[in-house]
């Protein structure tokens, strides 16, 4: 290596030094340690003991693991597509020549940036079965059908749908991303389509959707990854339902025992750090598999244009 190269390398390493430390201490070491722990019997109080695939074998026969996975997939299966439809619809509306765009954009965007703890409190109150404002609106409608509105977060059958509805309140962020994508669609495409006599639906299906497909794909991936790791709102809501419920039990009746909640309680309440690490890697594999699947399905449909 020439002196010049050596000097350049030194400069490069000097500038990236904070990240070299940060990368090693807060990323590389934890990843390797976590992988190692997942093959160990380990509570933070004692040294890890290597047990091979023991944790992963236990995982397969762990009913709570499957329950938490099912709950989480149920949530993701509904909240992600509904979120895409809601945020894309709002973005399409805002992309029309309308007055007050900045106002509407602010109203739709703001709920997505508020602290999740606070918005969870708010929805806990809105969904309150007895005095909540939602059931006040729904009660007359339900009575007309001869039934009564559900207790939402207090009812095992309705807690997850309630969480899914709540997640739709936070679609503002992806709406802004779609809006940026829509404004990048070349105007000429619409002009020539109009000349060809394409109707609104054809223009949407053949121009808008392909043009924003990279953005759509990005939001879809972020949505899946986010939904599988959802934690705070579930923790706050499960802890707030019915007074002093333990947030880690997924009340009511374990219907909101989500994957991250189970992982968190395994690691930090049961102190089964080895098993929790195996849970974390299982999640990683699931996320990676879904990402791969989404990429595979999307690959032929995404149009990257300049």
């Amino acid at each position: 290596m020439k002196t010049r190269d050596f000097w350049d390398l030194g400069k490069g390493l000097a500038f990236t030094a904070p990240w070299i430390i940060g990368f090693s201490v807060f990323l590389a070491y934890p990843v390797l340690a976590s992988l190692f722990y997942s093959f160990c019997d380990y509570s933070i109080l004692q040294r890890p003991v290597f047990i091979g695939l023991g944790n992963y074998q236990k995982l397969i026969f762990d009913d709570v693991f499957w329950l938490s996975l099912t709950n989480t997939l149920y949530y993701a299966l509904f909240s992600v597509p509904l979120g895409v439809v809601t945020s894309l619809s709002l973005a399409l509306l805002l992309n029309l020549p309308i007055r007050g765009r900045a106002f509407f954009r602010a109203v739709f965007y703001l709920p997505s940036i508020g602290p999740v703890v606070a918005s969870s409190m708010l929805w806990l109150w809105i969904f309150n079965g007895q005095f909540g404002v939602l059931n006040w609106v729904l009660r007359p409608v339900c009575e007309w059908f001869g039934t009564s509105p559900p207790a939402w977060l207090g009812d095992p059958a309705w807690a997850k749908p309630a969480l899914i509805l709540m997640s739709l309140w936070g679609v503002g962020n992806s709406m802004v991303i779609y809006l940026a994508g829509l404004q990048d669609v070349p105007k000429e495409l619409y002009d020539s389509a109009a000349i060809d006599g394409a109707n609104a639906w054809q223009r949407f299906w053949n121009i808008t959707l392909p043009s924003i497909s990279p953005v759509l794909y990005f939001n879809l991936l972020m949505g899946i990854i986010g939904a599988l790791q959802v934690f705070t709102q579930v923790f706050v809501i499960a802890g707030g339902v019915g007074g002093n419920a333990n947030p880690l039990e997924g009340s009511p009746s374990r219907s909101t025992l989500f994957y991250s909640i189970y992982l968190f309680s395994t690691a930090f309440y049961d102190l089964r750090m080895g098993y929790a690490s195996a849970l974390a890697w299982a999640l990683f594999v699931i996320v990676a598999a879904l990402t791969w699947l989404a990429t595979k399905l999307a690959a032929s449909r995404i149009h990257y244009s300049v």
Partner: protein
Amino acid sequence: MKARGVAHRPGAGLRFFVYACLGFGTLLFGFPLLWMLSTSLSPVEQTLSYPPRLLPLAHYASVDGQRLEVTLDAEVRPGHWAVTERSAGSKSADKDRRRAIVPAASVQTQIRPRWENYPLALGALGGTSIDELEGFVAPSTRLGADSEVGFLTFFANTVIVCVLGVIGTVLSNALVAYGFARLKWRGRDAFFALTLATLMIPYPVLMVPLFGVFQGLGWIGTLLPLWVPAFFGSAFNIFLMRQFFRTLPVELSEAARLDGASELRTFWQVILPLSRPVLAVAALFHFLHAWNDFLGPLLYLTRKHTFTLGLALQSYQTTHGGVQWHFLMAASTVTILPVLLLFFFAQKTFIQGVATTGSKG
């Protein structure tokens, strides 16, 4: 669907439909926030009555010849209400209150937001009982360090984590991104690829060993794990800033070099001043992330005097929050307010930031 740039404007019917949709959407997205504000300003008995009151009301009636604020307890016979004197308290000192049955026509009702809910809610957040706050019982002299803890402590903790984190984020990521964007060195591209790859790692994978790292450093129970890592860069911000630095002309650095400026000086005096937009985006989103973070404080903060606002709110809710909806909503409003203010002052940075983070993905 007509996107921007379509030659003709939509017809009146379609325009009406679009505004109707937007109006309905505004109602669905905006109402919850207004409802939070309304509940936070309501007296407790209105939060526990059905049907819900959309506006905070106060009722006044004559009891024993005196004009008093009262609560309407029940309509004992048509046109007559049983009323109870309303003192500030929620449930205490019940026996001392005056009661009467008054004709409904003599009851005056007006809208009165109860701003006094706010100091009470913030006081309750620290664990002081409502009765103490409302002066029904003498402040208890509790022992231990936690007796002095209150809203201001939680607020200060959150601000410390946010501000130090923002400083760290801007400094460290800019420095590192400069190294990746504007210096040529052996192994640079491989290291950058590795950096991008770490974006795939879900946080739960890191959670357990990170806890071990912070425990080894003796940081559990302090605010350190929440802001010190910001001084060591983050893959996403490095990526974001690198993209920006690469768009700045190479000639700038060359001119500085010819003038005899060191690399650090070029970075500090030439590149950074030109990079305000991207620094603002990184700073803003880190502030938001730190302000809204719940899992971090939940993991690392063990004692009440180190709690952040969000954690204090959640802990209040699980310990005595049960039905104190007016207090919960007041505290939630206070937690959301800084974010709203930030949005109104930096709306452009927000929208551009979200747009760039999305399209770069």
